[in-house]
Protein backbone atom coordinates (compact mmCIF):
# COMPACT_ATOMS: atom_id res chain seq x y z
CA UNK A 1 0.00 0.00 0.00
CA UNK A 2 2.54 2.53 1.15
CA UNK A 3 5.58 3.26 -0.97
CA UNK A 4 8.05 2.44 1.82
CA UNK A 5 7.10 -1.29 1.91
CA UNK A 6 7.84 -1.99 -1.74
CA UNK A 7 11.57 -2.45 -2.35
CA UNK A 8 13.23 -0.11 -4.73
CA UNK A 9 13.40 -2.05 -8.04
CA UNK A 10 16.44 -0.12 -9.17
CA UNK A 11 18.55 -0.90 -6.08
CA UNK A 12 21.83 -2.73 -6.91
CA UNK A 13 21.85 -6.50 -6.19
CA UNK A 14 24.60 -6.39 -3.58
CA UNK A 15 24.04 -7.65 -0.06
CA UNK A 16 23.82 -5.07 2.64
CA UNK A 17 23.44 -4.95 6.40
CA UNK A 18 23.28 -8.29 8.19
CA UNK A 19 23.73 -10.45 5.11
CA UNK A 20 26.81 -8.48 4.14
CA UNK A 21 28.30 -9.03 7.61
CA UNK A 22 27.58 -12.77 7.46
CA UNK A 23 29.19 -13.09 4.07
CA UNK A 24 32.25 -11.18 5.25
CA UNK A 25 32.57 -13.52 8.25
CA UNK A 26 32.33 -16.51 5.93
CA UNK A 27 34.92 -15.01 3.61
CA UNK A 28 37.27 -14.40 6.55
CA UNK A 29 36.84 -17.99 7.71
CA UNK A 30 37.70 -19.28 4.25
CA UNK A 31 40.81 -17.11 4.18
CA UNK A 32 41.83 -18.33 7.63
CA UNK A 33 41.45 -21.98 6.63
CA UNK A 34 43.51 -21.43 3.50
CA UNK A 35 46.13 -19.60 5.54
CA UNK A 36 46.32 -22.56 7.96
CA UNK A 37 47.01 -24.93 5.09
CA UNK A 38 49.67 -22.58 3.78
CA UNK A 39 51.29 -22.41 7.24
CA UNK A 40 51.59 -26.21 7.46
CA UNK A 41 52.85 -26.71 3.93
CA UNK A 42 55.16 -23.72 4.35
CA UNK A 43 56.65 -25.20 7.52
CA UNK A 44 57.34 -28.46 5.70
CA UNK A 45 58.86 -26.57 2.79
CA UNK A 46 61.12 -24.51 5.08
CA UNK A 47 62.37 -27.57 6.97
CA UNK A 48 63.02 -29.55 3.79
CA UNK A 49 64.64 -26.54 2.10
CA UNK A 50 66.99 -26.00 5.05
CA UNK A 51 67.98 -29.66 5.11
CA UNK A 52 68.66 -29.69 1.36
CA UNK A 53 70.45 -26.33 1.25
CA UNK A 54 72.73 -27.09 4.19
CA UNK A 55 73.18 -30.82 3.63
CA UNK A 56 73.78 -31.08 -0.12
CA UNK A 57 77.33 -29.70 0.08
CA UNK A 58 78.33 -32.39 2.59
CA UNK A 59 77.33 -35.33 0.46
CA UNK A 60 79.76 -37.07 -1.88
CA UNK A 61 80.90 -40.66 -2.38
CA UNK A 62 83.38 -40.52 0.51
CA UNK A 63 80.62 -39.23 2.79
CA UNK A 64 78.50 -42.26 2.05
CA UNK A 65 81.10 -45.02 1.91
CA UNK A 66 83.88 -44.15 4.37
CA UNK A 67 83.94 -44.05 8.15
CA UNK A 68 84.45 -41.17 10.57
CA UNK A 69 85.83 -38.49 10.18
CA UNK A 70 85.51 -38.33 6.36
CA UNK A 71 82.13 -40.03 6.07
CA UNK A 72 79.20 -41.64 7.80
CA UNK A 73 79.22 -45.07 6.14
CA UNK A 74 79.11 -47.06 9.41
CA UNK A 75 76.07 -45.11 10.60
CA UNK A 76 74.22 -45.71 7.33
CA UNK A 77 75.08 -49.41 7.41
CA UNK A 78 74.04 -49.70 11.06
CA UNK A 79 70.69 -48.01 10.49
CA UNK A 80 70.12 -50.33 7.52
CA UNK A 81 70.88 -53.44 9.59
CA UNK A 82 68.79 -52.30 12.58
CA UNK A 83 65.82 -51.47 10.35
CA UNK A 84 66.17 -54.81 8.56
CA UNK A 85 66.26 -56.82 11.79
CA UNK A 86 63.31 -54.85 13.16
CA UNK A 87 61.27 -55.49 10.02
CA UNK A 88 62.13 -59.19 10.01
CA UNK A 89 60.63 -59.36 13.51
CA UNK A 90 57.66 -57.05 13.00
CA UNK A 91 56.46 -58.10 9.55
CA UNK A 92 55.52 -61.77 10.21
CA UNK A 93 53.81 -60.91 13.49
CA UNK A 94 52.05 -57.92 11.95
CA UNK A 95 50.75 -59.91 8.98
CA UNK A 96 49.57 -62.75 11.26
CA UNK A 97 47.69 -60.25 13.42
CA UNK A 98 46.10 -58.83 10.27
CA UNK A 99 45.13 -62.36 9.19
CA UNK A 100 43.63 -63.03 12.60
CA UNK A 101 41.61 -59.81 12.34
CA UNK A 102 40.26 -60.52 8.86
CA UNK A 103 39.93 -64.32 8.83
CA UNK A 104 39.24 -65.48 12.36
CA UNK A 105 38.33 -62.83 14.94
CA UNK A 106 34.74 -62.16 16.00
CA UNK A 107 33.44 -58.69 16.82
CA UNK A 108 34.76 -58.69 20.39
CA UNK A 109 38.16 -60.05 19.46
CA UNK A 110 38.47 -57.47 16.70
CA UNK A 111 37.60 -54.62 19.06
CA UNK A 112 40.06 -55.71 21.73
CA UNK A 113 42.87 -56.32 19.26
CA UNK A 114 42.36 -53.03 17.45
CA UNK A 115 42.44 -51.22 20.79
CA UNK A 116 45.69 -53.02 21.62
CA UNK A 117 47.22 -51.93 18.31
CA UNK A 118 46.10 -48.34 18.87
CA UNK A 119 47.60 -48.31 22.34
CA UNK A 120 50.86 -49.78 21.02
CA UNK A 121 50.87 -47.12 18.36
CA UNK A 122 50.39 -44.41 20.99
CA UNK A 123 53.24 -45.51 23.27
CA UNK A 124 55.84 -42.73 23.46
CA UNK A 125 59.03 -43.96 21.81
CA UNK A 126 61.14 -42.97 24.81
CA UNK A 127 59.07 -45.41 26.88
CA UNK A 128 60.00 -48.16 24.43
CA UNK A 129 63.61 -47.08 24.92
CA UNK A 130 63.30 -47.54 28.68
CA UNK A 131 61.60 -50.89 28.05
CA UNK A 132 64.32 -52.39 25.88
CA UNK A 133 66.93 -50.97 28.20
CA UNK A 134 65.36 -52.77 31.15
CA UNK A 135 64.80 -55.95 29.16
CA UNK A 136 67.92 -56.30 27.05
CA UNK A 137 70.60 -53.76 27.95
CA UNK A 138 70.66 -53.29 31.73
CA UNK A 139 73.43 -55.43 33.35
CA UNK A 140 74.36 -56.58 29.84
CA UNK A 141 75.51 -54.37 27.00
CA UNK A 142 74.03 -52.11 24.38
CA UNK A 143 73.19 -53.78 21.10
CA UNK A 144 71.73 -53.05 17.71
CA UNK A 145 69.33 -55.87 18.45
CA UNK A 146 67.86 -54.04 21.46
CA UNK A 147 67.26 -51.03 19.21
CA UNK A 148 65.70 -53.29 16.60
CA UNK A 149 63.25 -54.70 19.15
CA UNK A 150 62.08 -51.18 20.01
CA UNK A 151 61.70 -50.28 16.34
CA UNK A 152 59.83 -53.55 15.74
CA UNK A 153 57.29 -52.54 18.40
CA UNK A 154 56.89 -49.19 16.61
CA UNK A 155 56.44 -50.90 13.23
CA UNK A 156 54.12 -53.65 14.44
CA UNK A 157 50.82 -51.72 14.72
CA UNK A 158 51.49 -49.89 11.46
CA UNK A 159 52.12 -53.12 9.54
CA UNK A 160 49.16 -54.87 11.16
CA UNK A 161 46.69 -52.05 10.46
CA UNK A 162 48.00 -51.49 6.93
CA UNK A 163 47.90 -55.20 6.02
CA UNK A 164 44.48 -55.59 7.56
CA UNK A 165 43.08 -52.80 5.37
CA UNK A 166 44.43 -54.52 2.26
CA UNK A 167 43.33 -58.01 3.33
CA UNK A 168 39.81 -56.73 3.85
CA UNK A 169 39.74 -55.66 0.23
CA UNK A 170 40.48 -59.18 -1.06
CA UNK A 171 37.14 -60.12 -2.64
CA UNK A 172 35.05 -62.47 -0.54
CA UNK A 173 34.22 -64.34 -3.77
CA UNK A 174 37.83 -65.53 -4.03
CA UNK A 175 37.60 -67.12 -0.59
CA UNK A 176 34.21 -68.64 -1.44
CA UNK A 177 35.45 -70.02 -4.73
CA UNK A 178 38.34 -71.61 -2.91
CA UNK A 179 36.00 -73.08 -0.29
CA UNK A 180 33.72 -74.44 -3.00
CA UNK A 181 36.63 -76.32 -4.55
CA UNK A 182 37.08 -78.05 -1.22
CA UNK A 183 40.34 -76.30 -0.41
CA UNK A 184 41.17 -76.19 3.27
CA UNK A 185 41.10 -72.81 5.01
CA UNK A 186 44.83 -72.59 5.64
CA UNK A 187 45.62 -73.48 2.04
CA UNK A 188 43.32 -70.83 0.64
CA UNK A 189 44.71 -68.24 3.06
CA UNK A 190 48.30 -69.01 2.11
CA UNK A 191 47.80 -69.57 -1.62
CA UNK A 192 44.89 -67.28 -2.51
CA UNK A 193 44.33 -64.51 0.04
CA UNK A 194 47.91 -63.62 0.94
CA UNK A 195 49.30 -63.57 -2.63
CA UNK A 196 46.42 -61.35 -3.73
CA UNK A 197 47.20 -58.87 -0.95
CA UNK A 198 50.98 -59.19 -1.11
CA UNK A 199 51.63 -55.90 -2.93
CA UNK A 200 49.63 -53.93 -0.39
CA UNK A 201 51.27 -55.69 2.54
CA UNK A 202 54.75 -54.90 1.25
CA UNK A 203 53.93 -51.22 0.75
CA UNK A 204 52.39 -51.02 4.24
CA UNK A 205 55.66 -52.46 5.54
CA UNK A 206 57.70 -49.90 3.63
CA UNK A 207 55.61 -47.12 5.21
CA UNK A 208 56.28 -48.61 8.65
CA UNK A 209 60.02 -48.78 7.96
CA UNK A 210 60.04 -45.16 6.81
CA UNK A 211 58.40 -44.21 10.08
CA UNK A 212 60.79 -46.27 12.22
CA UNK A 213 64.04 -45.41 10.40
CA UNK A 214 64.27 -41.94 11.93
CA UNK A 215 63.28 -42.89 15.49
CA UNK A 216 65.92 -41.67 17.88
CA UNK A 217 64.61 -41.94 21.41
CA UNK A 218 64.82 -45.74 21.83
CA UNK A 219 68.21 -45.93 20.13
CA UNK A 220 69.70 -43.41 22.54
CA UNK A 221 69.21 -45.96 25.30
CA UNK A 222 69.74 -49.10 23.22
CA UNK A 223 72.70 -48.39 20.98
CA UNK A 224 74.43 -45.07 21.53
CA UNK A 225 77.99 -45.87 22.68
CA UNK A 226 79.66 -46.93 19.44
CA UNK A 227 82.76 -46.40 17.37
CA UNK A 228 81.86 -44.21 14.35
CA UNK A 229 84.84 -45.56 12.37
CA UNK A 230 83.84 -49.22 12.59
CA UNK A 231 81.60 -50.83 9.96
CA UNK A 232 79.53 -53.30 11.95
CA UNK A 233 76.99 -55.87 10.83
CA UNK A 234 76.81 -57.70 14.15
CA UNK A 235 73.51 -56.73 15.78
CA UNK A 236 74.64 -58.07 19.16
CA UNK A 237 77.02 -55.21 19.77
CA UNK A 238 76.34 -51.47 19.89
CA UNK A 239 75.86 -50.38 16.28
CA UNK A 240 76.54 -46.94 14.82
CA UNK A 241 73.34 -45.43 13.47
CA UNK A 242 72.21 -42.25 11.77
CA UNK A 243 69.63 -40.78 14.21
CA UNK A 244 71.81 -41.06 17.32
CA UNK A 245 74.78 -39.61 15.46
CA UNK A 246 72.73 -36.61 14.29
CA UNK A 247 71.59 -36.14 17.89
CA UNK A 248 75.14 -36.30 19.24
CA UNK A 249 76.46 -33.86 16.63
CA UNK A 250 73.62 -31.44 17.36
CA UNK A 251 74.46 -31.53 21.09
CA UNK A 252 78.18 -30.97 20.50
CA UNK A 253 77.85 -27.53 18.92
CA UNK A 254 80.78 -27.84 16.52
CA UNK A 255 80.17 -26.23 13.07
CA UNK A 256 81.85 -29.05 11.09
CA UNK A 257 79.74 -31.56 12.97
CA UNK A 258 76.66 -29.52 12.05
CA UNK A 259 77.48 -29.82 8.34
CA UNK A 260 77.91 -33.57 8.77
CA UNK A 261 74.58 -33.76 10.61
CA UNK A 262 72.81 -31.79 7.85
CA UNK A 263 74.28 -34.19 5.29
CA UNK A 264 72.96 -37.20 7.21
CA UNK A 265 69.61 -35.47 7.71
CA UNK A 266 69.36 -34.98 3.95
CA UNK A 267 70.05 -38.67 3.31
CA UNK A 268 67.53 -39.74 5.96
CA UNK A 269 64.82 -37.28 4.91
CA UNK A 270 65.15 -38.16 1.23
CA UNK A 271 64.89 -41.87 2.02
CA UNK A 272 61.82 -41.28 4.20
CA UNK A 273 60.07 -38.90 1.82
CA UNK A 274 60.66 -41.06 -1.26
CA UNK A 275 59.75 -44.27 0.54
CA UNK A 276 56.54 -42.88 1.98
CA UNK A 277 55.45 -41.03 -1.17
CA UNK A 278 56.21 -44.07 -3.36
CA UNK A 279 54.54 -46.50 -0.97
CA UNK A 280 51.46 -44.28 -0.70
CA UNK A 281 51.09 -44.15 -4.47
CA UNK A 282 51.55 -47.93 -4.77
CA UNK A 283 49.16 -48.58 -1.88
CA UNK A 284 46.46 -46.42 -3.44
CA UNK A 285 46.93 -48.26 -6.73
CA UNK A 286 46.77 -51.75 -5.28
CA UNK A 287 43.72 -50.80 -3.19
CA UNK A 288 42.01 -49.46 -6.28
CA UNK A 289 42.87 -52.64 -8.17
CA UNK A 290 41.52 -54.85 -5.39
CA UNK A 291 38.30 -52.94 -4.88
CA UNK A 292 37.45 -52.55 -8.58
Amino acid sequence: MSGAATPDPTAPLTPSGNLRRRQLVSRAAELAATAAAIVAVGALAIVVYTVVARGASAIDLDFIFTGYPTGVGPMLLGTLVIALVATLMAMPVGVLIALYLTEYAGARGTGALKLTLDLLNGLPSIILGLFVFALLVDHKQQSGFAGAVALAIIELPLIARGSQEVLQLVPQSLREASDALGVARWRSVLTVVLPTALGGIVTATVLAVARAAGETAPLILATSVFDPKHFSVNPFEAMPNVPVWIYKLSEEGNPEGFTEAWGMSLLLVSFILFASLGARALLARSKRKLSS
Partner: protein
Amino acid sequence: MAGATSHTVRMARGARVSPLRKRLDLLGDRLLFGVCVLAALLAAGTIFLVGYQIVHGATPALSKFGFAFVYETTWQPNFGEFGAGSLLFGTAVTSAFALLLGAPIAIAIGLFLTLLAPAGVRGVVGPLVELLAAIPSVILGFWGLLVLAPFVQDHVEPFLHGALGFLPIFGTPETTGLSVFTASLILTLMVIPIIASISRDLFQSVPRELQDGASALGATRWEVVRGVVLPTTSSGVVAACLLGLGRALGEAIAVSQVIGAGSEIQASLFKSGDTLASRIALQFPGALTELHKASLYYCGVILLAIGLASNLIAQAIGRRFAYRGATAR
Protein backbone atom coordinates in the same frame (compact mmCIF):
# COMPACT_ATOMS: atom_id res chain seq x y z
CA MET B 1 28.42 -100.70 -16.84
CA ALA B 2 30.66 -101.32 -13.86
CA GLY B 3 33.76 -100.05 -15.57
CA ALA B 4 32.10 -97.00 -17.09
CA THR B 5 32.46 -94.55 -14.15
CA SER B 6 33.09 -91.07 -15.42
CA HIS B 7 36.29 -89.15 -14.90
CA THR B 8 34.74 -86.75 -12.38
CA VAL B 9 33.32 -89.50 -10.24
CA ARG B 10 36.70 -91.18 -10.13
CA MET B 11 38.26 -87.88 -9.09
CA ALA B 12 35.70 -87.37 -6.36
CA ARG B 13 36.35 -90.86 -5.05
CA GLY B 14 40.04 -90.20 -5.17
CA ALA B 15 39.57 -87.08 -3.06
CA ARG B 16 37.42 -88.98 -0.60
CA VAL B 17 39.96 -91.67 0.06
CA SER B 18 42.87 -89.54 1.18
CA PRO B 19 42.94 -89.56 4.97
CA LEU B 20 46.49 -88.25 5.00
CA ARG B 21 45.53 -85.12 3.13
CA LYS B 22 42.53 -84.67 5.39
CA ARG B 23 44.63 -84.95 8.50
CA LEU B 24 47.20 -82.58 7.02
CA ASP B 25 44.50 -80.02 6.31
CA LEU B 26 43.09 -80.31 9.80
CA LEU B 27 46.56 -79.84 11.23
CA GLY B 28 47.26 -76.92 8.90
CA ASP B 29 44.02 -75.19 9.84
CA ARG B 30 44.73 -75.51 13.55
CA LEU B 31 48.34 -74.47 13.12
CA LEU B 32 47.54 -71.30 11.18
CA PHE B 33 44.81 -70.36 13.64
CA GLY B 34 47.14 -71.04 16.54
CA VAL B 35 49.96 -68.95 15.11
CA CYS B 36 47.57 -66.06 14.42
CA VAL B 37 46.23 -66.15 17.98
CA LEU B 38 49.79 -66.30 19.26
CA ALA B 39 50.68 -63.16 17.28
CA ALA B 40 47.65 -61.35 18.68
CA LEU B 41 48.55 -62.40 22.22
CA LEU B 42 52.12 -61.26 21.63
CA ALA B 43 50.89 -57.75 20.81
CA ALA B 44 48.73 -57.62 23.93
CA GLY B 45 51.51 -59.15 26.02
CA THR B 46 53.96 -56.51 24.81
CA ILE B 47 51.90 -53.72 26.36
CA PHE B 48 51.76 -55.49 29.71
CA LEU B 49 55.45 -56.32 29.56
CA VAL B 50 56.30 -52.68 28.80
CA GLY B 51 54.20 -51.56 31.75
CA TYR B 52 55.74 -54.17 34.04
CA GLN B 53 59.34 -53.37 33.09
CA ILE B 54 58.89 -49.62 33.55
CA VAL B 55 57.21 -50.00 36.94
CA HIS B 56 59.78 -52.59 37.96
CA GLY B 57 62.62 -50.23 37.00
CA ALA B 58 60.99 -47.46 39.03
CA THR B 59 60.55 -49.55 42.19
CA PRO B 60 63.49 -48.07 44.18
CA ALA B 61 62.24 -44.53 43.50
CA LEU B 62 58.63 -45.52 44.12
CA SER B 63 59.46 -46.90 47.56
CA LYS B 64 61.81 -44.05 48.50
CA PHE B 65 59.78 -41.04 47.36
CA GLY B 66 56.26 -42.43 47.11
CA PHE B 67 53.64 -40.15 45.64
CA ALA B 68 55.51 -37.01 46.77
CA PHE B 69 57.76 -37.50 43.73
CA VAL B 70 54.96 -36.23 41.53
CA TYR B 71 54.84 -32.76 43.09
CA GLU B 72 58.31 -32.29 44.63
CA THR B 73 60.36 -29.95 42.47
CA THR B 74 63.95 -30.60 43.61
CA TRP B 75 66.04 -32.58 41.14
CA GLN B 76 69.59 -32.96 42.41
CA PRO B 77 71.23 -36.20 41.26
CA ASN B 78 74.35 -35.50 43.32
CA PHE B 79 72.37 -35.40 46.55
CA GLY B 80 69.96 -38.20 45.66
CA GLU B 81 67.01 -35.80 45.73
CA PHE B 82 64.44 -36.29 42.99
CA GLY B 83 61.03 -34.83 42.25
CA ALA B 84 59.20 -34.53 38.96
CA GLY B 85 57.08 -31.46 39.76
CA SER B 86 58.90 -29.06 37.46
CA LEU B 87 59.02 -31.69 34.71
CA LEU B 88 55.29 -32.28 34.95
CA PHE B 89 54.79 -28.53 34.81
CA GLY B 90 57.01 -28.28 31.71
CA THR B 91 55.21 -31.18 30.05
CA ALA B 92 51.81 -29.64 30.77
CA VAL B 93 52.80 -26.17 29.55
CA THR B 94 54.48 -27.28 26.32
CA SER B 95 51.71 -29.74 25.42
CA ALA B 96 48.92 -27.31 26.25
CA PHE B 97 50.57 -24.52 24.27
CA ALA B 98 51.18 -26.85 21.32
CA LEU B 99 47.57 -27.94 21.39
CA LEU B 100 46.18 -24.41 21.80
CA LEU B 101 48.15 -23.24 18.79
CA GLY B 102 48.10 -26.44 16.74
CA ALA B 103 44.52 -27.65 17.10
CA PRO B 104 42.81 -24.60 15.51
CA ILE B 105 45.31 -24.63 12.64
CA ALA B 106 44.87 -28.39 12.15
CA ILE B 107 41.07 -28.22 12.26
CA ALA B 108 41.16 -25.35 9.79
CA ILE B 109 43.33 -27.48 7.51
CA GLY B 110 40.83 -30.32 7.80
CA LEU B 111 38.05 -27.92 6.80
CA PHE B 112 40.13 -26.51 3.97
CA LEU B 113 40.81 -29.98 2.60
CA THR B 114 37.19 -31.17 2.77
CA LEU B 115 35.20 -28.05 1.91
CA LEU B 116 37.36 -25.49 0.16
CA ALA B 117 40.19 -27.00 -1.81
CA PRO B 118 39.59 -28.09 -5.40
CA ALA B 119 40.38 -31.77 -6.03
CA GLY B 120 43.83 -31.07 -7.48
CA VAL B 121 44.95 -28.93 -4.54
CA ARG B 122 43.49 -31.43 -2.08
CA GLY B 123 45.48 -34.28 -3.63
CA VAL B 124 48.70 -32.33 -3.12
CA VAL B 125 48.16 -30.50 0.18
CA GLY B 126 46.71 -33.52 2.04
CA PRO B 127 49.76 -35.78 1.58
CA LEU B 128 52.12 -32.84 2.18
CA VAL B 129 50.56 -32.14 5.57
CA GLU B 130 50.89 -35.81 6.45
CA LEU B 131 54.53 -35.77 5.35
CA LEU B 132 55.14 -33.22 8.08
CA ALA B 133 54.58 -36.11 10.48
CA ALA B 134 57.13 -38.22 8.62
CA ILE B 135 60.05 -35.86 9.31
CA PRO B 136 62.06 -37.58 12.07
CA SER B 137 61.88 -35.74 15.38
CA VAL B 138 65.67 -35.54 15.67
CA ILE B 139 65.82 -33.60 12.39
CA LEU B 140 62.96 -31.33 13.40
CA GLY B 141 64.76 -30.73 16.68
CA PHE B 142 68.06 -30.06 14.92
CA TRP B 143 66.31 -27.57 12.66
CA GLY B 144 64.67 -26.05 15.73
CA LEU B 145 68.05 -25.67 17.39
CA LEU B 146 69.89 -24.05 14.48
CA VAL B 147 67.15 -22.24 12.55
CA LEU B 148 64.01 -21.73 14.61
CA ALA B 149 65.62 -20.90 17.97
CA PRO B 150 67.79 -18.02 16.65
CA PHE B 151 64.82 -16.66 14.72
CA VAL B 152 62.54 -16.88 17.74
CA GLN B 153 65.18 -15.24 19.91
CA ASP B 154 65.85 -12.35 17.50
CA HIS B 155 62.33 -11.61 16.31
CA VAL B 156 59.42 -13.40 17.93
CA GLU B 157 60.33 -13.18 21.61
CA PRO B 158 61.29 -9.46 21.60
CA PHE B 159 58.13 -8.69 19.63
CA LEU B 160 55.83 -10.60 21.97
CA HIS B 161 57.61 -9.19 25.01
CA GLY B 162 57.21 -5.68 23.63
CA ALA B 163 53.57 -6.06 22.71
CA LEU B 164 52.30 -8.30 25.52
CA GLY B 165 55.07 -7.97 28.10
CA PHE B 166 52.56 -7.02 30.82
CA LEU B 167 51.56 -10.69 30.91
CA PRO B 168 54.03 -12.69 33.03
CA ILE B 169 54.11 -15.51 30.45
CA PHE B 170 55.84 -13.22 27.96
CA GLY B 171 58.80 -12.27 30.19
CA THR B 172 62.23 -10.99 29.23
CA PRO B 173 63.76 -13.11 26.46
CA GLU B 174 66.86 -15.17 27.21
CA THR B 175 70.02 -14.97 25.14
CA THR B 176 69.83 -18.40 23.53
CA GLY B 177 66.35 -18.86 22.11
CA LEU B 178 66.27 -22.28 23.77
CA SER B 179 63.05 -22.01 25.69
CA VAL B 180 59.72 -23.56 26.56
CA PHE B 181 58.28 -21.36 23.83
CA THR B 182 60.53 -22.77 21.08
CA ALA B 183 59.85 -26.33 22.26
CA SER B 184 56.11 -25.65 22.11
CA LEU B 185 56.43 -24.39 18.53
CA ILE B 186 58.24 -27.60 17.51
CA LEU B 187 55.55 -29.66 19.23
CA THR B 188 52.91 -27.63 17.40
CA LEU B 189 54.44 -28.75 14.11
CA MET B 190 54.25 -32.37 15.28
CA VAL B 191 50.66 -32.13 16.50
CA ILE B 192 49.22 -30.46 13.39
CA PRO B 193 49.47 -33.38 10.92
CA ILE B 194 47.87 -35.86 13.36
CA ILE B 195 44.85 -33.70 14.17
CA ALA B 196 44.54 -32.46 10.59
CA SER B 197 44.36 -35.89 8.99
CA ILE B 198 41.90 -37.29 11.55
CA SER B 199 39.63 -34.26 11.39
CA ARG B 200 39.69 -34.30 7.60
CA ASP B 201 38.40 -37.88 7.68
CA LEU B 202 35.76 -36.84 10.21
CA PHE B 203 34.55 -33.87 8.17
CA GLN B 204 34.32 -36.06 5.09
CA SER B 205 31.93 -38.34 6.96
CA VAL B 206 29.40 -35.54 7.58
CA PRO B 207 26.37 -36.36 5.40
CA ARG B 208 26.23 -34.22 2.29
CA GLU B 209 22.42 -33.73 2.65
CA LEU B 210 22.76 -31.97 6.00
CA GLN B 211 25.22 -29.47 4.56
CA ASP B 212 23.17 -28.93 1.42
CA GLY B 213 20.07 -28.46 3.56
CA ALA B 214 21.74 -25.74 5.57
CA SER B 215 22.98 -24.04 2.40
CA ALA B 216 19.48 -24.19 0.95
CA LEU B 217 18.19 -22.40 4.01
CA GLY B 218 20.57 -19.58 3.21
CA ALA B 219 23.49 -20.39 5.49
CA THR B 220 26.85 -19.10 4.35
CA ARG B 221 29.80 -21.48 4.09
CA TRP B 222 31.03 -20.55 7.57
CA GLU B 223 27.53 -21.01 9.01
CA VAL B 224 27.36 -24.50 7.49
CA VAL B 225 30.63 -25.30 9.23
CA ARG B 226 29.60 -23.67 12.47
CA GLY B 227 26.09 -25.08 12.50
CA VAL B 228 26.39 -28.50 10.87
CA VAL B 229 29.93 -29.77 10.31
CA LEU B 230 31.53 -28.94 13.66
CA PRO B 231 28.59 -29.95 15.91
CA THR B 232 28.21 -33.36 14.24
CA THR B 233 31.92 -34.10 14.53
CA SER B 234 32.79 -32.34 17.79
CA SER B 235 33.45 -35.46 19.87
CA GLY B 236 35.60 -36.94 17.13
CA VAL B 237 37.59 -33.71 16.95
CA VAL B 238 38.11 -33.84 20.72
CA ALA B 239 39.39 -37.41 20.34
CA ALA B 240 41.77 -36.26 17.59
CA CYS B 241 43.09 -33.51 19.88
CA LEU B 242 43.67 -36.06 22.65
CA LEU B 243 45.69 -38.20 20.25
CA GLY B 244 47.69 -35.11 19.34
CA LEU B 245 48.16 -34.42 23.05
CA GLY B 246 49.52 -37.94 23.52
CA ARG B 247 52.07 -37.25 20.79
CA ALA B 248 53.11 -33.95 22.33
CA LEU B 249 53.44 -35.37 25.86
CA GLY B 250 55.70 -38.20 24.79
CA GLU B 251 58.08 -36.40 22.44
CA ALA B 252 61.54 -36.62 23.94
CA ILE B 253 64.22 -35.93 21.38
CA ALA B 254 63.14 -32.75 19.63
CA VAL B 255 62.10 -31.17 22.93
CA SER B 256 65.39 -32.03 24.60
CA GLN B 257 67.22 -30.31 21.75
CA VAL B 258 65.43 -26.97 22.03
CA ILE B 259 64.03 -26.57 25.55
CA GLY B 260 67.31 -25.72 27.26
CA ALA B 261 67.06 -28.25 30.11
CA GLY B 262 66.22 -25.93 32.97
CA SER B 263 65.11 -27.27 36.31
CA GLU B 264 62.88 -24.56 37.72
CA ILE B 265 59.24 -23.72 37.36
CA GLN B 266 59.07 -20.31 35.70
CA ALA B 267 56.08 -18.31 34.64
CA SER B 268 57.70 -16.96 31.48
CA LEU B 269 57.51 -19.09 28.35
CA PHE B 270 60.83 -17.59 27.25
CA LYS B 271 62.82 -19.31 30.00
CA SER B 272 64.33 -22.75 29.74
CA GLY B 273 62.44 -25.70 31.18
CA ASP B 274 62.21 -29.45 30.77
CA THR B 275 59.64 -32.18 30.24
CA LEU B 276 59.37 -35.72 31.56
CA ALA B 277 60.26 -37.35 28.25
CA SER B 278 63.09 -34.95 27.46
CA ARG B 279 64.61 -35.41 30.94
CA ILE B 280 64.71 -39.18 30.38
CA ALA B 281 66.43 -38.77 27.01
CA LEU B 282 68.95 -36.27 28.38
CA GLN B 283 69.93 -37.92 31.65
CA PHE B 284 69.30 -41.65 31.35
CA PRO B 285 72.39 -42.49 29.26
CA GLY B 286 74.60 -40.73 31.80
CA ALA B 287 72.75 -41.71 34.98
CA LEU B 288 75.24 -42.88 37.58
CA THR B 289 73.32 -44.06 40.62
CA GLU B 290 70.57 -46.65 40.66
CA LEU B 291 68.29 -44.13 42.35
CA HIS B 292 68.82 -41.65 39.52
CA LYS B 293 67.88 -44.32 36.99
CA ALA B 294 64.90 -45.40 39.07
CA SER B 295 63.70 -41.79 39.26
CA LEU B 296 63.89 -41.52 35.49
CA TYR B 297 61.90 -44.76 35.27
CA TYR B 298 59.41 -43.12 37.65
CA CYS B 299 59.12 -40.26 35.14
CA GLY B 300 58.46 -42.98 32.57
CA VAL B 301 55.67 -44.40 34.75
CA ILE B 302 53.98 -40.99 34.97
CA LEU B 303 54.38 -40.50 31.22
CA LEU B 304 53.03 -43.95 30.46
CA ALA B 305 50.03 -43.41 32.74
CA ILE B 306 49.11 -40.03 31.23
CA GLY B 307 49.80 -41.26 27.69
CA LEU B 308 47.71 -44.42 28.04
CA ALA B 309 44.90 -42.49 29.74
CA SER B 310 44.65 -39.85 27.00
CA ASN B 311 44.83 -42.56 24.36
CA LEU B 312 42.12 -44.67 26.01
CA ILE B 313 39.81 -41.68 26.44
CA ALA B 314 40.37 -40.76 22.79
CA GLN B 315 39.53 -44.32 21.71
CA ALA B 316 36.43 -44.39 23.90
CA ILE B 317 35.16 -41.10 22.49
CA GLY B 318 36.08 -42.14 18.96
CA ARG B 319 34.28 -45.46 19.34
CA ARG B 320 31.11 -43.88 20.73
CA PHE B 321 31.23 -41.42 17.89
CA ALA B 322 31.66 -44.13 15.26
CA TYR B 323 28.79 -46.08 16.83
CA ARG B 324 26.46 -43.09 16.77
CA GLY B 325 27.45 -42.32 13.20
CA ALA B 326 26.69 -45.89 12.19
CA THR B 327 23.22 -45.92 13.73
CA ALA B 328 22.35 -42.49 12.35
CA ARG B 329 22.87 -43.65 8.80
